């Protein structure tokens, strides 16, 4: 695909033109109860033509890649930009699309085709067998998703970027049932094991060991106590911190939300533009980075979809809000410092402010020290339920598995653990952060936002974190 040549052949009157090509295949294999449930490969290939006319951007997304079709797409986009220009939310210049040249390739050891479809199905069947540790296991599931995504971006002001991503997700899940009691347990929450890797993620011994543990814990939950209801200390494992960071730090700090773009859909934010540089978001222990450079984390890249160079930045430092999650367009509109996170889910969606890798930096406590300082509390692992308000204030999250902490020791297993709180006060009660030895990297392929809607991949890494005085409660069975 020679985008430079295609760009050179376009005959339109625009202040700026960009071509963004995406060719992505997603291979999804799912085995349930030892039988294949899905062996699917969906492919998507197309081009977004974007133009800037009279300060207004407009786009035309097409799967026709011949010059006549791309010319027609560009001509229509110019007309649309002209028509919309009298109603522009902001008069942009080509500064909104910085010049970028370079490339990126996901690091991996084993190539996408290093295992056959039969090999992977065989592995997933074995995973189902390993999950079935008891007759009380009524359903077993094992999945693998492999995404191969090739991105090209060129522009009339000189950008030329190529990025190639290989992303592998694995997951296993068991449902255990004993009469009316039903419990589900998965491997870190379904699909949290998403990384930029090759098929080394499908290493058999690791997958089968994890499957046995998942099955055993599902059965263990059947006879576990119900999570108590009280305000107490809450220790969140890294696979739940992923969700906590995502919902109560990531989304409220997206500058386009703060500017109101999402008010009709995902919502607004409790954070205001004046808060950047000032707001105490959490305790002194809270350090959040936007870090596209973490090897193997799901949303690592060198350039966003508007051409901005992606670099590590502190979003929150020692508890104080430093900068927002906003690409160049949002930075221009708001005057707030941001990051390179202007991202689109594919060729058929325009980029908007998205999370990428958003991480909580390690502190200096060991896991034993975090547990040891708790008189009464709960350790929760692996998200199973999530809901938060449109300002990203009032949240309620549920987990799959919990342990009671009494007098500095993990004691009994608890089922149906939930907690709720309000973002800002919750983070101010952060009183312990695990060290780098306890730092774990996860991701999710399913972050939804935008109009038209877009699902995008994000990464979150964190050590376990301890919060004081959290409203914890159980289920209703």
């Amino acid at each position, binding site marked *: 695909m020679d985008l430079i040549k295609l760009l050179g052949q376009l005959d339109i009157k625009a202040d700026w033109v960009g071509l963004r090509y995406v060719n992505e295949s997603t291979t999804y294999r799912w085995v349930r109860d030892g039988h294949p449930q899905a062996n699917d490969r969906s*492919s998507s290939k197309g081009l977004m033509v974007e133009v800037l006319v009279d300060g207004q951007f407009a786009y035309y997304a097409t799967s026709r890649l011949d010059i006549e079709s791309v010319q027609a797409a560009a001509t229509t986009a110019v007309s649309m930009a002209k028509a919309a220009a009298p109603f522009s939310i902001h008069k942009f210049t080509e500064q909104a699309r910085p010049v970028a040249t370079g490339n990126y390739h996901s690091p991996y050891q084993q190539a996408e085709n290093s295992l056959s479809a039969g090999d992977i199905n065989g592995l997933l069947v074995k995973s189902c067998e390993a999950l079935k540790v008891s007759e009380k296991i009524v359903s077993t599931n094992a999945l693998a998703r492999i995404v191969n995504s090739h991105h090209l971006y060129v522009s009339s002001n000189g950008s030329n970027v190529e990025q190639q991503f290989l992303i592998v997700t694995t997951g296993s899940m068991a449902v255990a049932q004993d009469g009316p009691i039903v419990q589900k347990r998965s491997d870190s929450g379904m699909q949290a094991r998403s990384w930029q890797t090759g098929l080394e993620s499908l290493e058999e011994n690791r997958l089968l060991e994890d499957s046995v543990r998942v099955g055993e814990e599902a059965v263990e939950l059947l006879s576990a106590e119900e999570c108590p209801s009280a305000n107490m200390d809450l220790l969140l494992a890294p696979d739940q911190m992923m969700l906590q960071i995502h919902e109560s730090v990531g989304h409220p700090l997206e500058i386009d939300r703060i500017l109101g773009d999402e008010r009709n859909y995902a919502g607004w934010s409790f954070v205001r533009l004046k808060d950047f540089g000032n707001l105490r978001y959490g305790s002194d222990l809270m350090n959040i980075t936007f870090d596209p450079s973490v090897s193997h984390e799901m949303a690592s890249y060198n350039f966003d979809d508007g051409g901005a160079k992606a670099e590590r930045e502190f979003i929150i430092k020692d508890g104080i809000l430093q900068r927002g999650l906003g690409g160049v367009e949002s930075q221009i509109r708001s005057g707030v410092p941001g990051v390179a996170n202007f991202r689109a889910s594919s060729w058929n969606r325009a980029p908007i402010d998205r999370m990428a890798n958003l991480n909580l930096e390690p502190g200096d406590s060991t896991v034993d020290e975090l547990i040891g300082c708790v008189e009464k509390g709960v350790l929760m692992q692996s998200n199973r339920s999530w809901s*938060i308000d449109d300002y990203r204030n*009032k949240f309620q999250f549920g987990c799959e598995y919990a342990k009671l902490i009494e007098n500095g020791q993990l004691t009994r297993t608890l089922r149906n653990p939930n907690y709720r709180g309000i973002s800002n006060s919750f983070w101010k009660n952060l009183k312990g952060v695990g060290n780098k030895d306890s730092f774990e990297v996860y991701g999710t392929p399913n972050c939804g936002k935008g109009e038209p809607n877009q*699902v995008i991949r994000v990464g979150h890494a964190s050590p376990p974190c301890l919060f004081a005085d959290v409203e914890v409660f159980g289920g209703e069975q």
Partner: protein
Amino acid sequence: MEQLFDQLCNSLFSQLAKDESLAISLQGESSLFNRINGAKIRQTGQVNDSDLSLDLVFNNRRATGSVTLTGEFEPDLEPVLDEIARLRREVKELPVDPFTVLPEGGQSSRTVLRGDLIDPEQGVEKLLVPMQGADISGILASGSIYRGNANSAGSKHWFSSDNFSLDYSLVNPQEKMVKATYAGSSWSQSDYEESLSLSIEKLQIMGQSSIKLEPGNYRTYIASAGVADLLNMFSWNGLSELSMQTGESAFLKMRNQGLQLSPLFSLAEDFSNGLVPRFNAQGEISAERIDLINRGQLKSCLVSSRSAKEYALESNFANEGEELRSAVMASGELPESMILQALGTGVYLSNLHYLNWSDVVGGRITGMTRYACFWVENGEITAPIENMRFDDSFYHFFGNNLEAVTAESHINPDVGTYGGRSLGMTQCPGILLSSFALTL
């Protein structure tokens, strides 16, 4: 697009081996998207996107795949043939799938719903000028949507619809909001401006200072849009036969323990309004109406042919995900004009937000109140409320706490655009509850 679909199907079916079965689906759209913030254009663009999905069964093994179409037969044929060749190679490597269902023939349908849509370029002015002076965010999605299905056993279905949805929120200076949707197949400038005026009028009430409620149980009215959100949860760990069989359904207590909901609650999958195609990805046609819950009793789940084969049941030709496609909840007897009087003192909720199961087995759903939600005293709206979190079980709010159901029912179109514009809808009335748990 229909002609292209026919040509590709003919090419694929003509070179199929005797022991191969193939189902082909097309999903496509040509859509205008105008994204609005502050009654200004935030983003504007057009998307032309179509995919062809192939579902190949050979020797009780199954592999599926999809490719992007350009809309032209010659350039599309090659990647489609490449994909069927890849599926043929792959399917031989796969384990036997004992629950694979071969496509059946004999059924065909064709629905073409033509519309009169706003012009992509000149329509901006028609859309934006009436909004000026108001603070409005939202999106206009407008254009043609295509769905096709054919299989090697001889069935063929085509559905296309020209339609639009303007989904928007009005915001007042106190950041209180009102939500509205203007949707249809023929754009009427006068209808649009009337819809907008009604929403602006509704926003006036939101100008009063809001009340902060304490957590607790409240008499509550939930309007149709909020009820639709609650019903949509039943597509996820809900009325799917597979989720029932694998222990993941919130309705297990109804099937296994005989629990019932209120006799005021009835729910069906009902395609009679013709807005949603009745055929699924296998080319099977659902009955026009499937009673799921009748006067509080679980009558049926959504059963795909795959689940039917696995669990020796009768299929009702749900799609493979066994989600609701065209849910209709039965109306009741409470006239909408009497809602405030019937509520007396309590909470009026227009919309809900960000729902999730907080306890699947217990049927408990959590979420937020959003948009035009009010405190009502002695049958009069007194003030908007600050948004509250709810956490309550449908065994309560569609059970003993369901006091009345409105006589009027509304269509709530699925305006979702993940992966493409949706065609689904939920038709439902509002509900009056003797108690609803607000928790934070």
